[in-house]
């Protein structure tokens, strides 16, 4: 028999009264924001992205100190446990909350990781939405010269990040494969010498890929990122290749690359065009049938040639309808037991449902430009993001940080970088500063500039704001409406790459 004294000694927790700091039920507010998600429900979100869905009017009751410790004991407990209120002016576990905040901003720890080398502007495709490419044989004018490649590599290894990624883009990057080989081998030898991690990626439409190229990629552990816009009739319409089917070449290329490099070494990205908007199910099915584990439903960027043609112009509302239909289809696959994700949703869900964050250029604050990514253009120009160099093709050099002849400090900490830094945190932007979805969203000065004419942006008619707000709201609505969907989303959020 266990005597009472002994039983008490082995208890791990004291009586609940012991933890009751305030018997009178007075409480202090902690920082949080709220948003009405439906007429009946509102969401409150704290500084680290934890959220509670509550009946409309609850926020007002919290602020007016009308939550009673005894009669609303469950809600009161949730508010305390999730750091929305505290019984002491400084919550006893503030250091835990601070650690969680630091974890959410972990992407700032190492500074620039992704270094994009625009190895050539030449391309053999004539995609109607392409922002930058040129169909030409003029290597001298449109390929990145070796000395710029070397300077780019030198700058890349000055990054304090212990693991850097070099990504080759085009035009069609494989048209300058000899230069890629030079860059890879040079970067590998420096990485080995100084003990830095190095990931290499080639972005290619795979039209001109050969076994020989892929064998080289295998030997040097290079990842392949390609473009697949959906079924043949969509892909070929979007991605025009004179005298050939781009779709057939891409599919053949993906299969060959998977055979040589391995299934998981090949990824694909799609771009939504006006034509795509009518075929959400077909596009998702294409990715599923091709054996991908997910799809990133990206809307077309408002840059370069993309906006010049009526064919590419569509409004955010239409994209959101498309997005929701596609997400429904993706969820159907998940209900059938397949793991198949939508990657934009996954980014938001990781922020909402996990202790971590995702470093994604326009969905982080401070924004990922310069902090996370930098672009070395074929002509030696250094740009804040991939979209920035696309603006430059229209003679808009707002986000040109300098050239590869400049020093690291001039590029990364110069006047232009400082100017951008003024507007790269959504915590300090009008319209964002008190938005409940702020911890899930980000700042995109380049998009603001391209669509609204200034880096600061204007939230009431921003398509960036409209799109992200609605997708986040919709994800919450889905989770609230169906427990099965919540479980699926929790599964997506658990696969964090950090």
């Amino acid at each position, binding site marked *: 028999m266990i005597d009472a004294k002994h039983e008490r000694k*082995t208890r791990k927790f004291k009586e609940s009264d012991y933890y009751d700091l305030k018997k009178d039920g007075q409480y202090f507010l902690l*920082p949080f924001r*709220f948003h*009405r998600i439906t007429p009946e429900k509102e969401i409150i979100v704290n500084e680290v992205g934890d959220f509670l869905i509550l009946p409309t009017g609850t926020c007002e009751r919290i602020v007016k100190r009308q939550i009673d410790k005894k009669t609303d004991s469950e809600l009161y407990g949730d508010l305390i446990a999730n750091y929305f209120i505290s019984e002491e002016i400084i919550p006893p576990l503030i*250091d835990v909350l601070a650690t969680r905040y630091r974890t959410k*901003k972990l992407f700032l720890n190492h500074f620039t990781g992704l270094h994009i080398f625009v190895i050539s502007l030449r391309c053999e495709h004539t995609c109607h939405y392409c922002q930058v490419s040129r169909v030409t044989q003029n290597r001298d004018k449109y390929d990145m010269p070796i000395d710029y490649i070397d300077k780019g590599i030198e700058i890349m290894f000055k990054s304090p990040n212990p693991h850097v990624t070099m990504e080759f883009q085009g035009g069609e990057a494989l048209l300058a494969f000899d230069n890629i080989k030079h860059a890879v081998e040079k970067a590998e030898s420096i990485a080995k010498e100084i003990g830095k991690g190095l990931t290499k990626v080639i972005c290619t439409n795979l039209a001109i890929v050969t076994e020989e190229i892929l064998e080289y990629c295998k030997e040097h552990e290079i990842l392949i990122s390609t473009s697949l816009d959906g079924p043949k009739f969509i892909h070929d319409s979007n991605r025009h290749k004179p005298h050939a089917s781009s779709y057939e070449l891409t599919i053949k290329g993906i299969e060959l690359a998977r055979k040589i490099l391995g299934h998981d070494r090949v990824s694909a990205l799609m771009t939504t065009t006006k034509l795509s908007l009518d075929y959400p199910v077909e596009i998702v099915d294409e990715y599923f049938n091709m054996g991908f584990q997910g799809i990133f439903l990206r809307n077309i960027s408002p840059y370069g040639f993309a906006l010049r043609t009526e064919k590419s112009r569509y409004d955010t509302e239409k994209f959101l309808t498309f997005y929701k239909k596609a997400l429904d289809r993706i969820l159907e696959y998940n209900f059938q037991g397949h793991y198949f994700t939508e990657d934009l949703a996954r980014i938001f869900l990781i922020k909402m449902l996990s202790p971590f964050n995702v470093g994604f250029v326009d969905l982080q604050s401070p924004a990922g430009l310069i902090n996370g990514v930098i672009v070395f253009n074929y002509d030696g120009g250094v740009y804040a993001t991939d979209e920035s160099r696309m603006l430059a093709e229209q003679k808009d050099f707002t986000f040109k940080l300098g050239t590869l002849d400049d020093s690291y400090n001039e590029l990364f900490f110069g006047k232009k970088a400082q100017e951008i830094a003024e507007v790269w945190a959504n915590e300090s932007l*009008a319209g964002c500063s008190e938005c409940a979805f702020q911890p899930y969203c980000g700042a995109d000065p380049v998009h603001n500039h391209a669509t609204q004419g200034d880096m600061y942006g204007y*939230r*009431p008619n921003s398509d960036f704001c409209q799109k992200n707000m609605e997708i986040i709201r919709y994800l919450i609505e889905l989770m609230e409406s169906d427990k099965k969907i919540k479980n699926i989303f929790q599964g997506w959020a658990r696969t964090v790459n950090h």
Partner: protein
Amino acid sequence: MSFHNRIEGNEIIVFADTSLYSKDSIFKCLYWYGDKYHANVSFVDSNTYKISLKPMSDNLISAEQAEKLLQKLERDLLDFNLRDIVTKETKNIRDLLIAKAFSNGEFDELPPGELSDPVGFNVNEIKND
């Protein structure tokens, strides 16, 4: 003197007590109307703000829409005032939280209370090797 919120032709007029509504909350609220409406804030007397919204010329509204807009503005003013209360009341704790988060632990304190060891782990004798 009392002021009633109303619709006058194509204009929405709302009054707010200066002791209940902060100036910041009113401007933060009206920010969201600026793309479609001319927004104006003035004092009727020292205790009352007069807030008005007028559609931009190419954006005329029906009586039904005006009623909905009035309702939305009234609700948004309340919401932004609540947000403003939370922001101001929690400013110091938010600053402290972020300062602690980025101090890399150098200002961390031990949690309050005594460290007891009822199951006999002898935590003080655990070596971190």
